[in-house]
């Protein structure tokens, strides 16, 4: 006899991950560590943005970093040269970080000494979107050579992030990136998102980004 279990309220598919993410969030709130999940495709400039931000905030905000990559310590080594605590997670083929991986990394970080924590997700515009980690803000980067039509192809990420960094604006004269059209598209589906065109290479536009971070960091939680 077949019978149906009535799922009265829809059960979120990633319920278990969401629960661990809530535990992470509680831990981060207790330690007063403002946490930003950084998502983008490989090569957009996630690590460069994090390093540039660490340099800009040196002496005023204590930063920590969790690096997520499929393999290698390359990014963690780059970040460690900035003198901040960093933990590398290798997902061994996994295309995104999940809350459990982040929890293990949080337990190894001196959180009470970290006011601003960056979690650099695995380079990917699809998979990380559904996996909450315990973060306070989600941001994505898009670099100018990738093209301004990305929101059509990956609407999920652009619809959910709190801020979008358009990196490599020093390449605008050499690419067909249409910044006004991109801005219209992303604000069309996500009017609350903030857009930061900048160049990690030249430093142009970086201060608006760090101002936004500091403003959000200081909002009582």
């Amino acid at each position, binding site marked *: 006899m077949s*019978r149906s279990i009535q*799922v009265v309220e829809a059960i*979120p*598919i990633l319920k*278990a991950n969401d629960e661990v993410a809530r535990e992470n969030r509680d831990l981060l709130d207790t330690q007063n560590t403002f946490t930003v999940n950084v998502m983008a495709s490989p090569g957009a400039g996630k690590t460069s943005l994090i390093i540039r931000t660490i340099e800009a905030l040196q002496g005023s905000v204590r930063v920590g970093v969790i690096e997520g990559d499929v393999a290698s310590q390359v990014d963690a080594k780059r970040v460690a040269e900035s003198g901040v605590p960093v933990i590398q997670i290798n997902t061994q083929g996994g295309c*995104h970080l999940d809350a459990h991986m982040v929890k293990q990394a949080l337990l190894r970080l001196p959180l009470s000494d970290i006011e601003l924590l960056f979690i650099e997700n695995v380079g990917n515009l699809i998979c990380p979107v559904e996996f909450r980690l315990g973060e306070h803000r989600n941001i994505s980067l898009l670099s100018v050579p990738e093209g301004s039509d990305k929101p*059509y192809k990956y609407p999920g990420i652009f619809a959910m992030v709190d801020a979008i960094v358009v990196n490599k604006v020093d390449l605008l004269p050499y690419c067909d990136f249409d910044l006004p059209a991109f801005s219209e598209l992303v604000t*069309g589906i996500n009017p609350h998102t903030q857009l930061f065109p900048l160049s990690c290479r030249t430093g142009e536009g970086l201060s608006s980004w760090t101002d936004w971070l500091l403003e959000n960091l200081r909002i009582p939680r």
Partner: protein
Amino acid sequence: MHELAVTQSILNIALQEAEKAQATRITDIRLVMGSFCGIVDDSVRFYFDFISQDTLAEGASLSFRRVATRFRCRACGAEFSPEDQDWTCPSCGAVGGEVVAGREFYIEGIEVE
């Protein structure tokens, strides 16, 4: 690629719910997925058949209800389905809108014996 993690979550939830209902077998799991979630049905089925072996869910079928993206225009309130590379509201010409459908990602029912 994240289908394996997603499939594992689906299986875990189904097994927990089946246990609560004191069922002996899971026959069908009904999933609702919006077009934003980027999940490939065939991959989920492939993984599911593999990881459900020797569990109450072995042999269960998976039904996918797909939900297409719908926008509600912020300027005029009209609801519309965005085209591939055109998010313009057909009524007033504004671009984009509030996402009113397409983000669904949940289990809506489980059939057991």
